[in-house]
């Protein structure tokens, strides 16, 4: 049946008693994530995107408002325990989420906490290692892995718990270009296998790989659109301190010079073909 996550009129702050409401980290957010979606949440440093991520997997409890899974509010510890299995999270720094002395043990750690049997582990672990491309490194010590490999190990650990949703919180920002590409490809593959992907980032180029984009600024949702719609409106990103894709900047500059191009561009592809015809 999958997992549908709903936030309804959610407000959140770390010190709600001392801060006035306009400074709260998350303000009046209502969002819905269906099973199988690929969503990016973008915002600049301090926009509240990481707080939002922690609300989505139950690590933080809304100060006000409701957090529901499949329409049921999450209230008891039992609910939260179940939620942790369904909604996995990958953090920014790969070193912060690895605990065990070997690759296999690291994946087994999470499973053991969930009470998964040894037999079942022997079945699941090779499968997830294959999925993230770490087969053959079972006995390796995690601190000998590259940053990208560590991040894939963290993903394998989450996948072994068979989650419905994975949240990536700036998970590519500390990696080199190869590591970054690998993780982005993996996100796409996991999405195709039916897992909901929520990717939190400040990089517009990575965000546009998703089907749906949500812009957060000073704790509030500014936009929630398909990536095509948002691409057409991408000049707006600038005011929230986000990158405008270079194709959009070119489009705007040429229109200012009087080129007859469509007012809205839905993709770089459209820009290339229109440019070609007008030259």
């Amino acid at each position, binding site marked *: 049946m999958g997992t549908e996550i709903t936030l309804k009129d959610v407000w959140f702050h770390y010190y709600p008693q001392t801060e006035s409401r306009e400074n709260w980290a998350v303000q009046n957010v209502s969002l819905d994530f269906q099973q199988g979606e690929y969503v990016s949440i973008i915002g*600049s*440093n301090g926009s509240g995107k990481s707080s939002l991520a922690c609300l989505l997997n139950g690590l933080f409890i809304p100060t006000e408002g409701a957090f529901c899974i499949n329409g049921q509010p999450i209230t008891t510890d039992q609910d939260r325990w179940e939620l942790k299995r369904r909604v996995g999270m990958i953090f920014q720094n790969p070193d912060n989420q690895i605990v065990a002395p070997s690759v296999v043990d690291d994946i087994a750690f999470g499973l053991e906490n969930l009470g998964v049997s040894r037999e079942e582990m022997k079945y699941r672990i090779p499968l997830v290692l294959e999925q993230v491309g770490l087969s053959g490194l079972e006995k390796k010590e995690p601190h000998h892995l590259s940053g990208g490999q560590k991040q894939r190990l963290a993903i394998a650990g989450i996948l072994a718990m068979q989650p419905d949703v994975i949240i990536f919180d700036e998970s590519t920002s500390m990696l080199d270009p190869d590591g970054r590409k690998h993780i982005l490809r993996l996100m796409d593959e996991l999405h195709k296998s039916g897992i909901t992907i929520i990717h939190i980032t400040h990089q517009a180029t990575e965000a546009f790989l998703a089907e749906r984009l949500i812009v957060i600024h000073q704790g509030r949702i500014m936009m929630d659109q398909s990536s095509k719609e948002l691409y057409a409106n991408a000049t707006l990103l600038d005011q929230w*301190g986000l990158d405008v894709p270079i194709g959009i900047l070119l489009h705007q*500059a040429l229109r200012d010079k009087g080129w007859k191009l469509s007012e809205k561009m839905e993709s*770089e592809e459209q820009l290339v*073909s229109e440019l070609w015809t007008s030259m």
Partner: protein
Amino acid sequence: MDIHVNDISYVYQKGTPFEEEALSNLSLSIQHGIIQAIIGKTGSGKSTLIGLLSGLLRPSKGSITVGEDKVTATTKKIPFRSKVGVVFQYPEHQLFAETVYKDISYGPTNQGIPAEEIKNRVYHAIDLVGLDESLLEKSPFSLSGGQMRRVALAGVLAMEPSILILDEPTAGLDRIGSEQLLSLIHHLHQQKQVTIILVTHQMDEVARLAGQVLVLEKGQAVFNGSPVELFSERSRLDKLGMEPPSLTKLIDRLNERIHPPIPTSLFELDQLVAHLELRRKVGNNE
């Protein structure tokens, strides 16, 4: 103060079963006052090269000359260490003092500089990095990530290095933070005429800032030349497994349709717009 790297190799844990050659037979000349970019994948030897250029490591073979000072495997004291400032990756993790002032003054104090001079240097350094004086008595840990990074940079600048090494200075910063830091680097370079060695994964930064770019692969120099030269030859980039800057990528896409192709030596959007304008005018006249 020119830098000459003459045929150096560096071997970690020499003579043990864990022996590993991180750099082999590398030669490089860095003229005083340029911005030299160093790029390469994880494990290509970038960090080792930084260690050598900053005087923290000695080469296993060959020599490094910085100005008048020469360092070989047997050199005891490395004299140029105080002339090279290094800002490591995520430098905000290295802040430690109770106040911003104490943190910035720590380096020059260790260099034995008199108190009055230190005060001048701290004020000058925060001015250079664009931090407000009101922050000096605050705890560095109460600042934003971008501000903390500038405090760390100010701490290095207060030692007045002639060579500044920056290891991925914009990693983890958002667009505004990155742009501020890059224009700061540009400004420093113009104003202070320091040599800047910039280690980065961001090709847009290389295209915008660097005068010369070194590509390392498995401990060897596989390219050293201008960014134009590096990014204009797509086949070489592919062979090195590198992504071109975002504008070059867009030009590549346009060139799938447009003939004759747009030159890939354009790194600024304005240049591309001017080029397309020219082409359109010529096209209309035909």
